[in-house]
């Protein structure tokens, strides 16, 4: 089963602290949504509002068009997958998975059959009569998934479910989660602070910060065309070049940046939050300096001197000091064949389309995200 979710103007305050500030989000039925953000950004609060563990101070939550205002957690069409698995230690895997069905007064034979089907789906059918303590972390997580899906919820809430697994297992579980979600078609709302995990599994990513939604979109959109400085820096390494928008007209925008004056086509500046004039930031991902052009329009931001570099296998990661602003540090990925001798001059050449124009200036030039 599956259902759309509609969050309208949800606000949650704890005393003086605003955990969630006027958040609205429409989730389609069967979507895999990832709430991404640092700890304290409100993503877990939002998940708790959906599950009914918390109720919003203001605003409404509707699942399948039905307002959840006075529906208790156990009556909601949602189930949760917890980070610490929260399996019942005294029950076999089969009884764990069948627990929700038992609470719904479904007969023993039927619920055992269903539980075994689900254990089969997560590859643990042979262990149906084992107890949770006999399993590895990844296996327990699979049981938790089967248990949450057994009651056929409209929406599955995943509270950093892969956080306790080691990196390799986490990547493997991401693929499985995605595959299972496609198979069952249930709406998944998944919370994480790992942007790679978010990109690996999400249909749409919701980037959150300080109780607000910063950006919503497909992983490609969020990475290539983020809407805010925060979304740009949270989704991976990025160089921020502070600039001032001088004026727009004739499909072009005149920009004064720390690396000199440039003019960019208006299409690059397609961000509603950008003013006609005033402070802005040019954001460029390190890999976009790599200069493998496929006929796209390129431009240069002047020359820079290589400060240092390290070999990363697929590329060199180098720190560059632009001639126009020697105090600035630009992180760039360079081809494996590049000469990264310190002091070598390189051209800061990029595809026009890969430049991201964002409103405002980074708060501190020493922001670790800009320095890489």
């Amino acid at each position, binding site marked *: 089963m599956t259902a759309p979710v509609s969050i309208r103007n949800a606000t949650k305050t704890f005393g003086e602290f605003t955990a969630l500030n006027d958040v609205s989000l429409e989730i389609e039925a069967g979507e895999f949504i990832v709430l991404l953000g640092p700890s304290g950004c409100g993503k877990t609060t939002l998940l708790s509002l959906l599950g009914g563990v918390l109720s919003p101070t203001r605003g409404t939550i509707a699942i399948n068009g039905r307002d959840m205002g006075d529906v208790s*957690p156990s009556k909601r069409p*949602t189930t*949760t997958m917890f980070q610490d698995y*929260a399996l*019942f230690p*005294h029950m076999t895997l089969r009884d764990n998975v069948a627990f929700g069905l038992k609470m719904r007064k479904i007969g023993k034979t039927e619920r055992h059959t269903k539980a075994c089907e689900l254990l089969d789906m997560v590859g643990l059918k042979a262990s149906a009569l084992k107890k949770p303590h006999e399993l590895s972390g990844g296996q327990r997580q699979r049981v938790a998934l089967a248990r949450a899906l057994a*009651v056929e919820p409209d929406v599955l809430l995943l509270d950093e479910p892969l956080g306790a697994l080691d990196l390799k297992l986490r990547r493997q579980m991401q693929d499985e989660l995605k595959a299972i979600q496609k198979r069952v078609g249930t709406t998944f709302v998944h919370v994480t602070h790992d942007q790679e995990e978010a990109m690996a599994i999400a249909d749409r990513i919701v980037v959150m910060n300080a109780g607000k939604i910063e950006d919503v979109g497909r992983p490609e959109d969020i990475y290539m065309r983020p809407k805010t400085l925060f979304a740009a820096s949270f989704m991976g390494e990025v160089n921020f070049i502070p600039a001032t928008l001088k004026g727009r007209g004739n499909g072009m925008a005149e920009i004064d940046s720390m690396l000199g004056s440039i003019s960019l086509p208006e299409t690059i500046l397609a961000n509603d939050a950008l003013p006609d004039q005033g402070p802005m930031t040019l954001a460029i991902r390190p890999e976009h300096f790599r200069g493998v052009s496929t006929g796209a329009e390129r431009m240069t931001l002047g020359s820079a001197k290589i400060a240092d570099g390290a070999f990363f296998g697929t590329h060199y990661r180098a720190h560059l000091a632009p001639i126009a602003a020697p105090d600035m540090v630009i992180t760039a990925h360079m081809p494996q064949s590049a000469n990264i001798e310190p002091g070598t001059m390189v051209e800061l050449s990029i595809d026009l389309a890969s430049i991201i124009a964002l409103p405002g200036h980074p708060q501190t030039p020493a922001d670790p995200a800009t320095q890489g």
Partner: protein
Amino acid sequence: MISSRFSKVISWAYLIALYGFIFLPVIVLVLFSFQDGRLPVPPFNGATLKWYGEVFADNRLMAALGNSLMVAIGSSLVACVLGFCAAYGLARFVLPASRLQRGILIAPMTVSYLIIALGLLSTFNWIGISLSLWTVGIGHVVINLPLCFAIIYASMGDHQKNIERAARDLGAKEWQVMTQVTAPMLMPSILAAFFLSVTFSWDEFIIAFLLSRFDVTLPVEIWSLLRSGLNPKTNAIGSVVFLFSIALLLVLELLVFRRTAKK
């Protein structure tokens, strides 16, 4: 070399003296329950099972033994259920003055059994409840409830809280969470609390003595036997009581602690 050997001898001697101090009275009790003679004092005249035969033939002793079992099991069950509910409430919900409430629940542990018995005696008189095995049972619930509460409360952690949340998330009602998730999860400590309170109730004398009238528990019956002087028969019943306690301990060890150690 010499000093290390010397310290070894000393520590062995200490160990033997320590266990001797603890167990010699019990060994003497059990040994002279087999005494072929009228007095359970040295010299040991030879072994006989005559006194055990007399114990098991004694209707009053056997009735008292039955009463003791009933009171011990009944009062321990009640104490465990009440202790579990109190622990669940205090560990899982935000209650007003919960520290104070915990303190008040555990406080009876520090009060002597004599005071509790006297208090209950005058309370029962005042309300007009006549003394019986029921009143003894109530007394034993009063002394064992704090123990059961403390043991069960100590085993309720935050990890289990999340497991209970998962149960609620899957549609379990509060009583279903308690009976199907929390209680089975805490079964080792609930069993430990149960068996401990059975042993405490089993050989409790003062409360049983002051709060009973016609039907009495085993310790009270033994006490009235002792009034007519020492007798190998009292040793024999004492040995039976001791054997029962040992058996309980073994059950506790095998059923509860082994299982928790395995996990």
